[in-house]
């Protein structure tokens, strides 16, 4: 007998942002992301409290994936950040912190929601237009003739993830590898449409970071015992490859529901094996040299192939299938029935390699746009972090091909942008308001909220109690020891600005970021030689940051716009 239960009414809360609980949750979330930000960011130890795997991280991708946020308002925030990260990899924390700051500041400004949202949008487009314009002074064009900006970008990304536990030499080494892996994935003969290849990250845990390396082609890990059996590999100009995504293990996976009744003496297993051996004969007569299977190959089929001089490698896993198919030009075969000769592909050469304790079959392609980044790090959690960082860096480099610019990092873009907005709202408010009927006071209030959100975002880079200054010429970011308030001679205390472009020896005039603001006109139009003179710049991915800025503002608008939360309690 089934029991009927009356449906419970949905719970409806109005003005969710005024609730203390929502505020508290948002502030915990803000605390978590803010404390992770930047090269000196603090790490979070993620675990389930019951002996599950432990992860130490400061990256938004890892952090947000394991934060089971239930509170709806926080959930909006984390979901949009995760969406941003899944498209652009980088700048997740930037987006999350900026969004939190905006919500907090705009609420405090006390304007009506519609006013705030509209003006916020205006300010956002002011920012994006500026960042995309030629006069933008926090953007550098990337010339692919020189490796330096790309190397700086990779290096900046690596240093901003402290949980990778890299020394300076190791950062240099990995940054160079990332760049090489990226360059190997760019096709040599570029036509009007470029299709980028793939860099496959091959794990090698427990080894030293400096043992990491990049190889063209692909590495397939195989057990030593199996390797012994395929040796020696015959010499040839080209090897014919068949790639199977179907299991060749000889089991009957699709018998469906119900019971299959067989007569005594009939063996389904043998029937399937016969089918497999038939397939084997076809492969041999088609002169296939290498059979790769995503899943398992039946030992008897393996034995058959081996005796006919065909190398068989199984259990390569789903992750390698796409790059393998791309590199060898094969169509993955999904059926055992018959194999069309057009599905075969080829590789130029085959050899074996040993790294650490692992043995690999190395597939060398005819035209290399697929490469393997063999990545080492001493312990598991640091390896996971390094892998994620390398993926982010490779992605950032790919995005840079599309939009060949980089942004100045180290907080300088944020402070400069804030200075630019302040100057614009003060000196040319009409150009922003566009006759929408909002007053200049309203604009000034929102712009103050917006700018201080950007500035406190930049300030989040500091975790050791230092103070942040900004200069009155370029509007860049400078950090100084806490108790050095109103020191007479700033140039002696300061070194370089956050991105490393300017030195304190220039007469700039500094003021505290948190103090009262003396509006100034930040210098626009970055001189070309400025970027070329500085050797070690901190840079950010242009596309990712621009998207992060948009996502942050739009998500903040969405959160501010919430008037009811309706919870289905059934």
């Amino acid at each position: 007998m089934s029991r009927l239960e009356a449906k419970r009414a949905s719970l409806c809360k109005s003005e969710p942002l005024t609730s203390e609980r929502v505020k508290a949750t948002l502030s915990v979330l803000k605390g978590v992301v803010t404390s992770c930000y930047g090269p000196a960011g603090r790490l979070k130890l993620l675990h389930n409290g019951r002996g599950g795997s432990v992860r130490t991280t400061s990256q938004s991708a890892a952090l947000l994936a394991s934060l089971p946020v239930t509170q709806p308002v926080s959930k909006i925030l984390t979901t949009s950040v995760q969406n941003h990260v899944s498209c652009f990899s980088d700048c997740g924390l930037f987006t999350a912190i900026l969004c939190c700051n905006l919500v907090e500041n705009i609420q405090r400004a006390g304007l009506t929601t519609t006013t705030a949202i509209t003006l916020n949008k205006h300010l956002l487009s002011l920012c994006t237009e500026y960042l995309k314009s030629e006069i933008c002074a926090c953007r550098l064009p990337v010339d692919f003739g020189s490796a330096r900006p790309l190397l700086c970008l990779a290096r900046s990304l690596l240093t901003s993830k402290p949980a990778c536990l890299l020394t300076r030499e190791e950062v240099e080494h990995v940054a160079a590898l990332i760049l090489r892996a990226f360059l190997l994935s760019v096709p040599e003969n570029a036509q009007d449409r470029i299709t980028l290849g793939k860099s496959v990250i091959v794990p090698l845990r427990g080894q030293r970071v400096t043992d990491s390396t990049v190889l063209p082609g692909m590495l397939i890990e195989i057990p030593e015992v199996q390797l012994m059996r395929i040796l020696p590999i015959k010499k040839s100009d080209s090897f014919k490859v068949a790639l199977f995504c179907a299991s060749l293990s000889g089991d009957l996976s699709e018998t469906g529901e119900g019971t299959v009744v067989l007569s005594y003496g009939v063996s389904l297993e043998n029937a399937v094996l016969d089918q497999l051996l038939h397939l084997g004969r076809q492969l041999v007569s088609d002169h296939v040299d290498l059979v790769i299977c995503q899943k398992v190959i039946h030992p008897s089929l393996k034995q058959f192939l081996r005796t006919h001089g065909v190398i068989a490698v199984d259990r390569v896993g789903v992750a390698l299938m796409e790059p393998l198919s791309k590199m060898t030009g094969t169509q993955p075969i999904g059926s055992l029935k018959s194999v069309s000769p057009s599905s075969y592909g080829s590789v130029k050469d085959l050899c074996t390699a040993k790294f650490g304790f692992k043995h690999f079959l190395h597939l060398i392609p005819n035209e290399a746009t697929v490469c393997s980044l063999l990545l080492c790090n001493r312990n598991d959690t640091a390896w996971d972090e390094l892998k994620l960082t390398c993926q982010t860096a490779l992605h950032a480099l790919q995005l840079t091909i599309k939009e060949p610019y980089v942004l100045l990092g180290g907080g300088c873009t944020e402070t400069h942008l804030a200075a630019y907005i302040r100057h614009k709202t003060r000196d040319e408010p009409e150009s922003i308001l566009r006759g929408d009927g909002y007053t200049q006071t309203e604009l000034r209030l929102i712009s103050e909220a917006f700018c201080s959100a950007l500035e406190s975002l930049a300030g989040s880079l500091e975790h050791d109690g230092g103070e942040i200054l900004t200069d009155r010429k370029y509007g860049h970011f400078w950090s100084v020891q806490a108790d050095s308030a109103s020191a007479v001679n700033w140039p002696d205390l300061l070194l370089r600005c956050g991105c490393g472009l300017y030195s304190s020896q220039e007469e700039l005039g500094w003021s505290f970021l948190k103090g009262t603001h003396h509006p100034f006109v930040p210098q626009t139009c970055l001189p070309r030689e400025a970027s070329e003179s500085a050797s070690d710049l901190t840079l950010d991915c242009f596309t990712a940051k621009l998207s992060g800025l948009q996502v942050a503002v739009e998500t903040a608008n969405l959160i501010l716009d919430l008037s009811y939360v309706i919870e289905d309690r059934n």
Partner: protein
Amino acid sequence: TVMACRVVSKRKHMGLQQLSSFAETGRTFLGPVKSSKFIQGEECHESVLISSAVRLLENLDLTNAVGQLLNEAVQAQNNTYRTGTNTLLFLVGAWSRAAEECLHLGVPISLVVSVMSEGLNSCLEEVVSLQVPVRNVFDLIDNTKTFSGLETFNTSLFPFLQIPSGAGLRQKERDLKDVTSQSLAVSSLSGRPVKSPELFRPQAKVETDKNTSQTSQALKNSLLANTRCRKSVLTHSRHFCSTDNNQWISKPDGFLEQHGATTPKTYECNELVELEVGLSHGDHNSMKLVDEAVRLQCKSAGVQHGNCSRPFLLDMSRIFTCCLPGLHETFSCVCPGYITVVSITSTTLIKELQHQSIRVILIEGDLTENYRHLGFNKSTNIKTVSESTKFQQESPEELWISHVLQVLIKFNVNLVLAQGNVSERLIEKCTQTKQLVIGSVNSNVMQAFAEASGAVPVAYVTQVNENCVGSGVYVTFWRNVPFDAAVQIQRIAIMLKTEGMNLVTVVLTSPVTAQMQGKEDRFWTCAYRLHCALKEQKVFLGGGAVEFLCLSHLQILAEQSLHKGNQGCSGWLRNTSSWLASSLALYRPTVLKCLANGWHRYLSTILCNTASYSSEFEASTFIQHHLQNAVDSGSPLSYILNECSKQNSGIFNSGISDKLEGIPRVYDIVTPKIEAWRRALDLVLLVLQTDSEIITGLGHTQINSQEPEGFLFL
């Protein structure tokens, strides 16, 4: 699920405290004299005797997140190098205390991270000077000079801790009773027994001190060895810039070299026995077995390749250990071939198979009727029915067994080695038909048999064809076991051999079952140490020399940065433009000193563990004294070596030094050691930078009942 977030570091850093308290449990494992721990399971009352960090952490219940990180780090070191885990565990403790000290002194976390990793890097560059090349150790391999011949030599040389002109010899003899047995002796500047570096003596206190009289001889040996150490030492070194007698030079590869009058003579280790004794760290029993294994392998490699022309490396995959608990220690030995235990019911069969060449097949998986290869999913919904009843007398297993027997008979196979389990019923049947079936065979052993006998491993018996069958295997009883012992355990040990097989079995025996694991571990530790030294072709001068060099180097760095300020600062901050970069000079000496304290603790704990000093304070004072001298001299490396030569010339005349040939030094392996340091510091810095713990999947109530404070909820 609810996510909770606990703030780790407030005023006191919880993570670091947890780390240091975990590491404290492994303090007694450091150094040559280890005290074992007895671990007893509460539920099943099983107990095990452990004396290494790996085994300790394996047996601890580490649900705590920081503990788990520690366990991961120790396991990773063990999986990669099989050694260095005790050092790792201890340094984790020492450096987490150091990091905490820095926090108390108000050093910003980012600076602690930066300066500590810079400090360790600088140490790593410095200790390159103490590397000794290992070259051609197999050139002079002969059977006249074996490991056992050198067993009685003392292996303790702490290069700078020497006995000053005859002082305190008597006192030394007395103290030695506590810690040493015949094969080791120790010496120290103050006449007290100093660490006999890394020598493993769990039974030291049990064994009676048979020959105190030998200690003075051993002492002499140690001092004599120092003369040799000085003799073969070098001329120009950057490390000697402050001293007059520039004898040492450091070659580009970091190795020390002597510039003599005629030709440059390299300071190197080129004798196998010398290397082995140096790396045994006092565990002569284990190293003796390793030595025998190496000689057997080298011999068979020589047979195979005509000579040992290419550099011979110890092939770890061809060494197999067979543990026979219950037998007396003296049964431990090394034999060529494969030794394993089989049921006593096979005795008659083996008697029959003895003295004849038999054929073998190798099975990769289980040898049972229902075994299927990995990745094969068995369908559960298949039912076989039979039209008539006459076929149903035999069960599927019986059918399968008769099929297997048919194959074995068809190919004339008398031996089956299976990597997995074997059906009991099959073993029984095969015994009747004179076929020996052995299960649970190690994969390396399978590989060795495959190579030597020509057999090709298969997954199923149905796959067997003539090409898969190997031949030329001989089976025999393992000679040493007395029959009554065999009856007791209902198993007998047998030996399988094939012409040209380079497999070596090390039989380990112990009357105490609880000691078996430790014994096996110690054997592998020695074996991997030697393997690593041969592979890297270099070793460190051991006995605490590297650690002392690190200690004094950091001390000097700290003092230099105190005087010079920011100049010559190689510190690296991730964020180079931060204000921290300019405050680096201010905090640097403090952090470097804290890091150095870690080394200090390391050395004094070793001294304490060897019972040379009754208190850590005493040991600490002793090290402090030498540290001061080394720092004052301006070059710690030259201090270590000069101290040696000064004292030796004071005591010995040239007559004695002739006898020095063959007296071993103590060596340490290079990469595993420095990797252990690096991993230890990495872990400490990782935890230091962690400010909160995020616990996923715990309900409010659970957390509230455990610890009410310090949690925030999302």
